[in-house]
Structure formats: structure tokens, C-alpha cells
């Protein structure tokens, strides 16, 4: 695989937290091609969320570099714009705004890309349809089940048509039925050529990915194909 195919490439990526005592990530070299479905696994404290945060420009590495489409993130002037336009984030706790309806929550990222209110509403309706939540568009988060909330959060992550979906323990708060629905959704997105990076400690979740990157004590200890391919 050449660098030209890489969506993300990390070079000697290291993150040491401010007191200097915790090496969250040590010399990680990872290449993620466009369109791949990748799972990042490891026990708690292994550095998997740190890797995801660095890929998503939420944090700065202590040393090393993250390249996105061959461009170093450290040289990017507007990382907010990069996150808003290229990335979609899904978190374990969905953090939908409680006073906004599902449709309104989906529109929140769209404020940053300068589209009109009517277009925001139209696009939110499309996304809720995509995640099977159009019938709940007018409901508040407290009126939704946890699985439904996560599907709305996924629709929110897709609001600005990103090319990568970064998910941190997306099924961590879900029962097996809802987790399966979310994973099916990820597979459908992957089939539509979206790059998906999922951080998980669940073998079941990782088994859906094309590739599994295993971390321990901040180091990449294994980088192999998953149990099945999509």
C-alpha cells in the first residue's frame, strides 16, 4: 500500500500527558487507507482513545506527526474546520442536547459550514431516514431509547458529509440488540466507501472490522486483519 492511498498515516506518534508520568502512546506508526473499516482494541489505558483523539485533531501529540491525505495536521491552520468538514465523531455517551429534538440535534454541526436553515432541516431529515429514525424526528432525547439516541448521534456525526467516522466505544452503553443495529449501520456506511475507525474493547465489535489494531501500554502490538471482512 502506498502513502498516496493513505487517509491517515501516523509517524512515531507519541503522547505523554502533562505530568510526564503517563506514556499514553509511544512511537505509534499506523497507516489507514481510505475506505477501510478499522477497529482499535486494547485494555483500558492502552492508548486507544488517545490514538483516536490524535487522529481526530482533538489533541496534539507530544512528538511525531499525523498526516491526513499526506498533509501534516500540525501544519493545518484551521483544525476546527478540518473536524467540521472531514470527520464525524461518535461517542460512548451520546451527549445530545436535551432541549432539542432529534432533528435539531442533527443540525448542530451544520452551523459551522454555512448552509441555510431550510437546507439544514432537509439534510437532517435525510440523515434521520438513513439511520432509521425519521419517525422520531420531533422527539426529545429523553423520549428516545438509548439505542435510538445513539442512532441520532450517528446521524449528527454524518451531518456535514464527512469522509471518516471516528467512534469511541459506540456500543459501550447499548444492549446487544441496539449494539447490533449500530454496527449494521457502520457496515452500511463502510459499504458506501466511508472510512470507519472504531475504538472498542469488545471482540464482537472488533470482529465486524476489516482490520484490528491492538494496543497495549501505548504501543501497537498487533496490526492484523479482523475475523471477517466486509
Amino acid at each position: 500500500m502506498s502513502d498516496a492511498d493513505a487517509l491517515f498515516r501516523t509517524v512515531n506518534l507519541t503522547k505523554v500527558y502533562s505530568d510526564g508520568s503517563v506514556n499514553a502512546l509511544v512511537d505509534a506508526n499506523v497507516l489507514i487507507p481510505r475506505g477501510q473499516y478499522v477497529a482499535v482494541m486494547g485494555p483500558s489505558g492502552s492508548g486507544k482513545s488517545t490514538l483516536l483523539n490524535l487522529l481526530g485533531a482533538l489533541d496534539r501529540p507530544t512528538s511525531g506527526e499525523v498526516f491526513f491525505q499526506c498533509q501534516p495536521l500540525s501544519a493545518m491552520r484551521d483544525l476546527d474546520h478540518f473536524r467540521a468538514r472531514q470527520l464525524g465523531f461518535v461517542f460512548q455517551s451520546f451527549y445530545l442536547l436535551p432541549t432539542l429534538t432529534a432533528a435539531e440535534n442533527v443540525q448542530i454541526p451544520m452551523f459551522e459550514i454555512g448552509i441555510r436553515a431550510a437546507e439544514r432541516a432537509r439534510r437532517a431529515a435525510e440523515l434521520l431516514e438513513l439511520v432509521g429514525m425519521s419517525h422520531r424526528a420531533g422527539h426529545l432525547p429523553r423520549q428516545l431509547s438509548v439505542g435510538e439516541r445513539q442512532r441520532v448521534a450517528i446521524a449528527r456525526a454524518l451531518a456535514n458529509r464527512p469522509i471518516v467516522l471516528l467512534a469511541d466505544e459506540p456500543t459501550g452503553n447499548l444492549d446487544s440488540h441496539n449494539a447490533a443495529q449500530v454496527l449494521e449501520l457502520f457496515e452500511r456506511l463502510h459499504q458506501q466507501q466511508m472510512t470507519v475507525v472504531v475504538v472498542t474493547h469488545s471482540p464482537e465489535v472488533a470482529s465486524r472490522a476489516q482490520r484490528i489494531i491492538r494496543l497495549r501500554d501505548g504501543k501497537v502490538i498487533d496490526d492484523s486483519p479482523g475475523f471477517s471482512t466486509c
Partner: protein
Amino acid sequence: MHFGTLIFKNLLRRPVRSLLTATGVALAVGAVVALLGVARGFEDSLLQVLQVHDVDIVVTRAGKTDRMTSVLDERWGQLLAGLPGVEAVTGALMDVVDFRDANLIGVFIQGWPSDSFLFDQLPLRSGRRLHPGDRQCVLLGAKLAEILQKTAGDTVQIEMHPFRVVGVYESYSLYENRSAIMPLEDFQRLMDRQGQVMAFHVKVSPGPEKAAAVETVCRHIENLSDQQGRRLPLEARPAYDYVKSTLQIRQVQAMAWVTSVIALVIGAVGMLNTMIMSVFERTHEIGILRAIGWRKGRIVRMILGESLLLCLAGATLGTLAAVAGVYWLSGLPAVAGLVQGKISPVVIGQGYAIAVLVGLAGGLYPACRGAWLSPTEAIRHE
């Protein structure tokens, strides 16, 4: 959904807290609007009195900060009348008396010569104006007559002396409607100030350059000398400047502004507390918003928007309460005529400006604090 909808709905998350904060701002703005409104109304009313009577210049004793203590020799009025550009001059004595039986305090009594030009613009509701030779007579303003329940022909006790009410006038000025006018000689004797007046009211001859003529006459008055060549201790001011520099008005305004500043500080501290709490509770959520690409500026706009919206809601509540309160106050017999029932739009504008300042002062720090949170630290926050 519009960005404003998001801001509005964020405030509904803690409706009781939002309501209490808006109420705090309402109290602060209401106090400011009411106090400034009363002060402004008092000033407007006094200016209106002078304008209605065609008074262009008010002459008082030089160096007196409190014009009520100004003492001038009544005979100097003849010197003023002889100056070029002066059409008419009248001496006036003023003091404040109480009508304790009617629970009325601070009623202005004026002593005017019976031939004063000031009577020309004093519409009578009943009775007649003062005539030369009238003694122990008084004209009552309509509001005062109503409160005292007196009419032409009745007798009223002033400073323990009986005065016959010869007429009731209805001025355009609330302030004048709550006062009384008696012959200058009577009032001088009553106040033991024979031969003295407090001020001279000067009417300048009409002409195309009235403002310049007023300034010229003021200079001439201040340069007047007695027969020994000593300059007379006179201070002449155009009517507007006189009202603006009146000690009582300056004191009322100063008190109103001091209260306003205190209200501003209290309001801003309350707002600061509310918004800091709000940002603290939403730290995780703000991290999520930063993660999905919201810029710092948008976070600042959202939090400042919430703060400003709360303040504007508070300002609206406070202004409505102040308008209603001042209207109610103006109807009370004890202060009727002193307090105008209307509040100037300029004062309401000042109230809203203060609310915006409270919103900015109380919201800026929490907004910046929220915006500059590291997304990862904010997301980890519990």
C-alpha cells in the same frame, strides 16, 4: 433550526434558574429605569415651567451651589430691565413648605409680583389672577387644590397664616400644578426676607438670533456694577443650563446613577454566577461541540447569546415594572405632581443599555472559559 432557537432552548434547560436570574436583572434594570425616569421627569418638568413662561435667562447669586439659598436685592431687577435686549424681568422668591394636615411635604411656594409676565402663561381653571394690592392671597395649582380640597374663595393655612384662595391654575407642568403662587410682598414677609428675591427671570426680546442674544444678555448681566462700581454678585444662565445645573436635580441624578452602578454590579455578579454554573454543568457538552467542529467564536456567541437574552428578558420585565410603578407612584397624593407618570424613551433606552452591559460583563468570562476548554479535557470532564 436557527442559532437563536438553540440559544433560547438552552435557557429552558434550567427554567427556574433562568427565571430567577432574569428576575435579578429585572430588579436592577427596574430600579435604574424608575430612578432615572423620576430624575429625568423632575428635570423636564422644571424646564417646562421656564419654557412655558417664556423665561430665557435665570439670574441667581453668583457662587451659590444651592440656588434655594440665593439671595438677591429686589431693586437690582431695575438694572436688569434697563439692559439692551431685555424685554421683561421679574423677581421671584421660592421656598418649600409642608401641609402636614394633608400629609403633603415639600410643596413649592412662589412669590411673584402681581404684574409679573409669568402670569401671562398661567391658564386659570377658576377664580382670577393676582391683582396689584392683593394681600394674604394665594393661587393654587390644580393638583394642590385637588389634594387640599380647596377652590377659589376658600382659605388655606400656610406656615400657620391664613391665605385666601383667589384662583386655581392649571399649568402644563406637573411640578407647577403641585405648587402655589402668592404676592411677592406676602411671601417675603412670611419668610422674613423683605426686599429679597431668590432669582430674576428674564425674557429676552424676540429676534432671529435668539440663542446668541441670550448669551449676550447673560454676559451683560454678569458685568453689571452698582453705583460704587463694584460688580454685582450675579450669575446668569440660559434656562436649559440653569435647570441642568440645579443642585437638587444633580443630586437626584447622582443618586440615580450611583444606584444604577450598584444595580449593574449586582446584576453582573448574578449573571456571572449563573453563566459559570451553566458552563461548568455543560463542560462535557461543550467538548462535544468543539469536537464536531464548532469554533471557539461560536461557543462564545452561544454563551454570550444566552447571557444577553436573559438580560434583555430581565430588562423588559424590569422596564414594565418600572413604568407601572412610576405611574402608580405619580397617583399617590403625597408625591403627586413631583413624579411624572411617564418615563422618557431615552431612560428606557439607558435601562436596556445597562442590561446589555450586565449581559456582556456577566457572560464574557464564562463564554471565554467555555470556548478555550481543550476538547479532550472537556470530554473527559465528569
